[in-house]
């Protein structure tokens, strides 16, 4: 059947196909525009590959079911948009604390609140990082192209499984609904990672860091495999049982954070265009970055020394990349985004005053246009 390996996929569709290619066999969700197609496609596609789809009673339950399924051994995903993403936060926090691999997709729409359900936004960038109580680093990936949705969904699963952590795929309505060509890798070309399992028969400490590379990620048994272990959202020790002792709890909280922060360089993906010699840098992500790219190309064509940094990994934040580029002399950094300056704020933090940061912002559903970016560049020139 698969003669041609190029397909027209909608962003949401590419996400489902990528997930299935990555080994996702469980999806629990609750419909919400503009992510709904992901649930709908999962309801069709998962049973075809022996997997399970369930539409739960709400987003909280969906996130809970995803955690349960993952602990029972399946690669699991959920998808939502702003209001549902807000509701999932408590159980995403559980997944982080209990170190449960899973992928959460948020196809962003205009907020706050119900906002504009069918219009694009990028207003959940900070929420993705900070939406939960307590400290927890989290990996957030953000595709801008439909083929990137496909590959990044696979990447999201790989990271989730390798680091035993929830990973957020932060899309926006434009990318989710857009249809583009995706050239599917041959099955053998796909790199698929699976969670590390404990050695059968050994005494299993589900939260005890081990030795060597990735030793900070303990192996994860599946329920039913005979290990009879305990999982809790209470601060716990290496054995998984609750502790009231700061000296037992602190290393645990620090480890789940540093699992991610210590891998910043490895986790951070970005696309750079003309950054070597740029004296104005444009930093953007998601669909806004496509407008930014057009603008940068157009400006380069007329000799403006402008460069583009398109962030693919949003969190952990690629401080080192921004600092490397800013080590050259930058006149200004321009940050186009469909929110009131969330990315710009982080960029400023990393720049430590090395260049002024100028935002290009839209918040009520209109995609940023290349002309908006060009105007901003011309103003600082």
């Amino acid at each position: 059947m698969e003669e041609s390996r190029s397909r027209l996929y909608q962003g949401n569709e590419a996400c489902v196909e990528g997930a299935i290619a990555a080994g996702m066999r469980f999806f629990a969700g609750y419909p919400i525009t503009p992510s709904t197609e992901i649930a709908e496609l999962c309801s069709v596609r998962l049973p075809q590959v022996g997997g399970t789809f369930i539409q739960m009673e709400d987003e909280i339950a969906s996130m809970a079911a995803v955690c349960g399924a993952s602990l029972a051994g399946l690669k699991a995903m959920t998808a939502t948009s702003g209001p549902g993403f807000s509701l999932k936060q408590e159980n995403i926090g559980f997944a982080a604390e209990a170190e449960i691999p899973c992928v959460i997709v948020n196809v962003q729409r205009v907020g706050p609140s119900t906002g504009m359900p069918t219009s694009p936004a990028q207003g959940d960038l900070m929420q993705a990082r900070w939406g939960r109580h307590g400290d927890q680093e989290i990996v957030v990936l953000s595709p801008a192209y439909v083929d990137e949705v496909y590959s990044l969904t696979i990447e999201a699963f790989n990271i989730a499984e390798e680091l035993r952590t929830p990973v957020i795929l932060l899309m926006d309505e434009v990318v989710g609904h857009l249809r583009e060509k995706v050239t599917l890798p041959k099955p053998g070309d796909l790199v698929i990672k699976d969670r590390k399992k404990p050695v059968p028969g050994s005494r299993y400490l589900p939260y005890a860091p081990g030795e060597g590379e990735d030793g900070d990620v303990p192996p994860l048994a599946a329920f039913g495999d005979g290990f009879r272990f305990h999982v809790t959202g209470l601060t716990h020790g290496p054995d998984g049982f609750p502790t009231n002792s700061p000296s037992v709890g602190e290393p645990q909280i620090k480890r789940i954070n540093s699992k991610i922060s210590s891998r910043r360089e490895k986790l951070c993906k970005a696309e750079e265009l003309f950054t070597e010699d740029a004296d104005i840098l444009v930093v953007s992500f998601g669909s806004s970055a496509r407008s930014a790219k057009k603008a940068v190309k157009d400006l380069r064509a007329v000799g403006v020394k402008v460069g583009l940094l398109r962030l693919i990994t949003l969190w952990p934040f690629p401080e080192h990349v921004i600092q490397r580029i800013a080590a050259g002399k930058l006149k200004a950094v321009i940050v186009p985004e469909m929110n009131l300056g969330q990315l710009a704020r982080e960029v400023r933090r990393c720049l430590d005053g090395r260049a002024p940061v100028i935002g290009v912002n839209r918040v009520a559903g209109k995609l940023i246009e290349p002309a908006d970016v060009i105007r901003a560049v011309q103003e600082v020139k």
Partner: protein
Amino acid sequence: MGSDLTKYLRVEKLPHIWCAGCGHGIVTQAIVRAIDELGLDPAKVTIVSGIGCSSRAPGYMNFDTLHTTHGRAIAFATGVKLARPELKVIVITGDGDAAAIGGNHLIHAARRNIDLTVVCYNNSIYGMTSGQYSPVTPLGSFASTAPYGMVERPFDLCELVMGAGGTFVARSTTYHARHLTNVIKQAIQHKGFSFVDALSQCPTYFGRRNNMKDALAMLNWYKENAVSRDDWAKMPPAERGSKFPIGVFRDEEAPEYCETYRKVIEKAMEEVGAK
């Protein structure tokens, strides 16, 4: 009888955190005994709980155990069960956990008839947070958030679950420990969603505030007020007063969710020629 139940316990974690006389230990023992008497393979039993004194039980039980977020145990358990239908999944929850914050998951699991056994350790109070009223606190009782007496009408949890479509619904109490064990056994054996409303005393917060001086007084209250399902049906409403029925209220067959979904998978795989 006389079987060694400690093999189902994480003895190194005992004594448990519950207060002296707390009913939760009695219910936990009943579950463990039911598992023992049914001869289930402990490696194939997963216990899931929410948050509350009751929900701490799994930490002492030697199976795969999952202590989740408040009210969400049934939703987590749904994921576990669907991912691995061969597991026996038992949910331990409290009246607050199951019926206040978690009420929605309870009714939806009942509706779906997914094969979970939910045992609600019902002490009609929030024990863990020190004695606030719950959705089953009786009218007029005192609680730390009902200082003038409870004014909200309580749920009858069994009625609620039956209204939602639950196919196995039963109630017992810690006084009736043997009966309780038996209904839990029936619940576990039931194919589909099963719910056991296990009345369990909280001497520390419910008893103390409501003129029951200790655990024994509370157990005696259960003894005096519990009425068998059949007697209850015959009892004129005017006589019921503080009495309540115990027993199995519903035991029906209906398609079980995981099995039905299996058929979806078969159909879908057939359609794409994967089978």
